[in-house]
């Protein structure tokens, strides 16, 4: 292709971009590692969640991905921060979704999201309803229960055994999905702190350049992850 005068050369760009990529694994800064540690979760000021909701999200995610055993738990990964920020943003308000009525909240789950509530609205209404059920059945709000009772309550919620209004039926699936998103998403969204979740499973994050790797069969990729902002772990 002949490059047109006055236009940036595509050929030139290809060279530059290939070089940039070759460096991406090593040259990106390590600044993030020297950065201030983030505010501890007990002093975090939520953008969207109320204090009670925050307590619930802390407690629930800690059971969904517990800290015990190998690998970080949701708390070490700062999943509650992720959830708070997502609910405060355009996911929380379902900006991209078709939210026009009429709504048939009783539709079977395989008909997709049919509640009139946005994700943020769903957390707002479901948490007190579920807490009330926990109080009635287990004697305290969810966050105040012991781990075993919390697991039992979450299991009942997952199985649809907690009698909730039909508009709240997607709550467990949404909470679980958001928890895993926060565990594995790039750390710039507030969770996956220090890329610990990626380190744990062996996912290299935003490296995204494996030109010599397809034919290295049955050899484990050796490098740790990088994040979009250039942190390394």
């Amino acid at each position, binding site marked *: 292709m002949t490059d047109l005068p006055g236009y940036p050369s595509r050929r030139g760009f290809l060279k530059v971009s290939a070089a940039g990529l070759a460096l991406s694994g090593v040259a990106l800064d390590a600044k993030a590692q020297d950065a201030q540690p983030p505010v501890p979760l007990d002093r975090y000021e939520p953008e969207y969640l109320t204090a009670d909701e925050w307590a619930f999200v802390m407690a629930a995610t800690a059971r969904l991905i517990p800290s015990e055993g*190998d*690998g970080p738990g949701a708390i070490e990964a700062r999943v509650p921060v992720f959830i708070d920020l997502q609910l405060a943003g355009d996911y929380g308000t379902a900006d991209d*979704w078709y939210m026009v009525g009429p709504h048939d909240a009783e539709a079977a789950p395989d008909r997709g999201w049919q509640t009139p509530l946005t994700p943020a609205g769903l957390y707002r209404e479901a948490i007190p309803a579920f807490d009330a059920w926990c109080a009635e059945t287990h004697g305290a709000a969810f966050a105040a229960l012991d781990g075993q009772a919390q697991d039992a309550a979450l299991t009942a919620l997952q199985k649809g055994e907690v009698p909730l209004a039909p508009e709240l039926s997607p709550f467990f699936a949404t909470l679980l999905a958001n928890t895993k998103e926060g565990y594995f998403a790039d750390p710039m969204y507030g969770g996956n702190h220090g890329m610990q979740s990626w380190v744990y499973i062996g996912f290299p994050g935003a490296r995204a350049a*494996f030109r010599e790797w*397809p034919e290295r069969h049955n*050899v484990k990729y050796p490098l740790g992850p990088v994040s979009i902002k250039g942190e390394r772990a």
Partner: protein
Amino acid sequence: MARQDKKRDVVIVGLGWTGSIAGIELAREGLDILALERGHDQATVPDFKYPNQIDELKYGVRLKMMQKPSRQTVTVRRSGDETALPYRSLGSFLPGNGVGGAGTHWNGLNWRPQPEELRLRSYVAENWGEEIIPEGMNLGDYPVSYDELEPFFTHFEKVAGISGKAGNLKGEIREGGNPFEGWRSEEFPMPPLPTTYDSSKFRDACLAAGYHPFQASAGIASTAYVNPYGMQMGPCNFCGFCERYGCYQYSKSSPQTAILDALKRMPNFEYRTESEVLRVELAEDGKTATGVTYWDEAAQEEVFQPADIVILSSFSLNNVHLMLLSGLGEAYDPLTGTGTLGKNYAYQMNGGVSLFFEDAEFNPFVGHGANGVCIDDFSVNQNDFGALGFIGGSYWRSGTFNGQPIRSMPLPKGTPSWGAGWKEGIGKWYGHAMSIGSHGSHMAYANNHLDLDPTYTDRHGRPLMRMTFNWQDNDLKMNQYQKSRMEPLAASMNPDVMQSSFKGIGAQYDVRPYQTTHNTGGHIMSETAREGAVNRYCQTWKAHNVFAMGAGNFVQNTQYNPTGLVGGLAYWTVQAIRTQYLSNPRPLV
């Protein structure tokens, strides 16, 4: 009162794969062209650049490149007895949005149909008799043959930059290619891509079983390449952020890498973004279109754009919606069989097996959208429909394409979905699983169709389109047959654990999990105006200056990903416009 702009020779509705093809080919004829794209502008630089694109949450999960249901969606019901409900958040299929359309974030699996698939009704009748066609199946022949389309498939593959190996070169069967494919006049533009570990294990098992493995043909560059428009591609580096992402390094075949930079330099071509076409306007006699009306987002007003030729290239579902709203044909009625718009909506019937090997290292993040080794041993032209009791077939593929952990975390059945057991499971199994997929045909049926919804409207007050769709026994039987053949092959690979997921008889369409964006039919090609919405040149029977591009033209879906046929048909249509229509505008059939 709508604003009216200066008349153009051609107005193009939607600037994805087919709109770009129409744009460049008609611009080369010297025509004055305006393309209207409802979404945003986007180009490799700066929009897809590293590392911003390597963001699973934003693009893979929150789907920021896709159509926003708040702007445009459909309603879905499984049968005439159900009330259709809106497809409020995306799941099963993900129509593209913005310049490049779904062509920017597709996987790049590029297939031609088998010749038999384009004359399937005749093929069935000749070999088994029409009596094996189940009641309610609208089985048809395409009104154009493989031989006629072959040069156009070849041309699209050169433009798109496809890597692969010919299995049938002018009738000669070639080692290492697909022996069951239709004939090719030329070898692929680029050689096949390298084979990852999972693919090579699958290949070995297939060879041992006497099957015929070949590397998937991929819209992914394996070498440096320059296409017929002078556009350059560089070899893919298996970044693993391919499907649902724009390629950051000119390796994935897309309107951006293959066409748009060349097209944008042509002075007689202009495109406008944030310009959503609302309807095609018909002349008083209803025999031609006068142009289109669109919503200019920046000016917040409706604009009438007059044009001599209208190209509908807004993706199958959007094309059908616009045609229904504009009266470009009569809506199909499944009870009487009359009308054509919305007829023969079809999809894809897929299944697969996951295999877990505790000690194997698959590095699932090393891959590209069209990675893999395939077989066609159980494809349409290999199956004995009479003996098997269904019409159809599938291709199988195994290859890493996405190790992104939010969405790709296969775990053995019985692993808890949360808690300590889940955490242990992800630590143990991530990177140690592979899969084999079956990608199967989907026939057309009287009761799977598209029309306008009686209840729900969009932000312009237009009725949403309603999709009536469910899985049908014929295709489910085909799927179960693939399962019965795939499981023994998978078992021969000696995984520690394996598990299948194939829909069976009685399966209901579930709009939540992603399946494919291979939504086909709805404005199908036909021999006569009674049977379909467009003729063999994809010219609408209703208005001779309106041409419809894309998979909406498919009579029934093939077993393959659609874009090879979509691209071939687009070049076939522009050829007809150039050589037959421009000099004498008229119905070409």
